[in-house]
């Protein structure tokens, strides 16, 4: 118990946190203002076939919106490119000002003040997947310190994080006992789960003996009878 007790406590604390906190809240879904914006096809002056002619390597072409502007997004080899659908002018990579406006536009609290803006091109933080790089990180001065990550090439929100997600992430790492990659198939977890299993079986045996007074009494009575019998025999 001494060895696995701490981990059992860690499991129950981290497990409780994870089940009590709503997963959609943890994902930051409630931070996003859903605004349904419709494409005005009169704004599309630069046609798709024109785009394909100008950029022959273009793949996964999409027509969508960037704030109120209609834009094309596509992969050009290994790079994401964004063009204006009005004239075909390249917009990507976006600058700091535009990144801030996009983040503010998506955040439910439109009065929140931006505290820090950072362009991340390499060494992403723990909370951002490397495949989203390059990305702008926009930190808001608000409850639970939300951070929005806006792709510098697509201008789209790629990740949103806040304090409770960051806590959840550590909780999960401690739950699976892998503090770096957070994979559940590590040897440390195996050893501790196995020990915890043995300890729990011992605990169950203890529970059985402690909380079964009648049976104990019956045993005691039996013992008494046996003792009496032995005493009688001796006599």
């Amino acid at each position, binding site marked *: 118990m001494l060895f696995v*007790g701490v981990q059992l406590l860690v499991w*129950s604390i981290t497990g409780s946190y994870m*089940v*009590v906190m709503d997963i959609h809240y943890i994902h930051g879904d409630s931070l996003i203002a859903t605004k349904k914006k*419709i*494409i005005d096809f009169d704004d599309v002056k630069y046609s798709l076939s024109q785009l394909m002619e100008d950029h022959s390597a273009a793949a996964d*072409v999409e027509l*969508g919106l960037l704030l109120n502007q209609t834009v094309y997004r596509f992969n050009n080899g290994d790079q994401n490119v964004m063009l204006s659908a009005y004239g075909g002018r390249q917009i990507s990579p976006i600058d700091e000002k535009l990144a801030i406006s996009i983040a503010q536009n998506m955040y439910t609290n439109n009065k929140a003040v931006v505290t820090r803006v950072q362009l991340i091109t390499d060494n992403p933080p723990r909370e951002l997947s490397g495949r989203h790089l390059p990305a702008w990180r926009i930190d808001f001065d608000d409850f639970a310190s939300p951070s929005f990550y806006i792709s510098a090439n697509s201008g789209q929100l790629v990740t949103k994080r806040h304090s409770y997600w960051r806590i959840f992430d550590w909780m999960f790492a401690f739950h699976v006992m892998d503090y770096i990659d957070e994979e559940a198939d590590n040897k440390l977890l195996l050893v501790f789960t196995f020990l915890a299993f043995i300890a729990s079986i011992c605990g169950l045996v203890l529970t059985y003996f402690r909380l079964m007074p009648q049976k104990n009494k019956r045993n005691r009575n039996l013992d008494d009878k046996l003792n009496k019998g032995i005493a009688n025999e001796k006599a």
Partner: protein
Amino acid sequence: MKKRNIPKLSFIKLSTVKKLHKWLSLFVFIQLFIWLGTGLFFNLMDHDKARGNQNKKAIVFQEVEHKRLLNLDLIMNNISKPVTEVALIQRLGKPYYLLTHEKGLYSHFKSDYSLVDAYVGDEFIIDDGVASKLAQASYKGKGEVSAVVKVKPPIKDMLKERNIAWQVNFSDNLNTSVYIDASSGRLIGHSNDDKRFVDLFFMLHFMDYPFLGKGSLGGFNNGQIIFFALLTLVFCLTGFIWVIELLRKGRYRLGS
């Protein structure tokens, strides 16, 4: 002074702690064993098999003849629903415009799409025949299609999915099922008996029991697990205090 006061105070509490620990053990022991057992399973299982993708293959894309692409404004004349996004995609090696009418935050959230042939302009409906072909294009196993069924959420194999889908079943030894989104034709995913077996363990670990509360929801935020998690938390805390007490009393000496 302080040192003398603590043992007396904690002694009163300790008896309650011990009693609580003993009774709680009776309540939580079954689920605790389930948690440890399934936890052990997750640790030891084959993580590749657990994904259910043994018979999945990458879809092959064809070259698009961009000169034949129809202009978008021509297509929009025939569309009555509002459009928020247009994507040039491929289904079965042919280009289509995927029109987004409604899109959730994630692909498994409620969405509404329509497909238009990018060369001809006709609307493309994902019926059972198309769904079957789409499923076969993502399948590399040796089985044949045995059934195509339209399924509404909750889908047992894909509990998180909130969109209507086609379930295409294959007659192979893993009973592979392929799920295709009924409005966009997107491949939602593969499932098979290996994945279903792992799903059973997740259901047990998350207490996502089909016969309790709202049934299986594919998550771990249900009432029963919150209740048992908190009980177990108290159980572990009381046990921990007990161990500390035993440690203070010197009951953990080596050789004793």
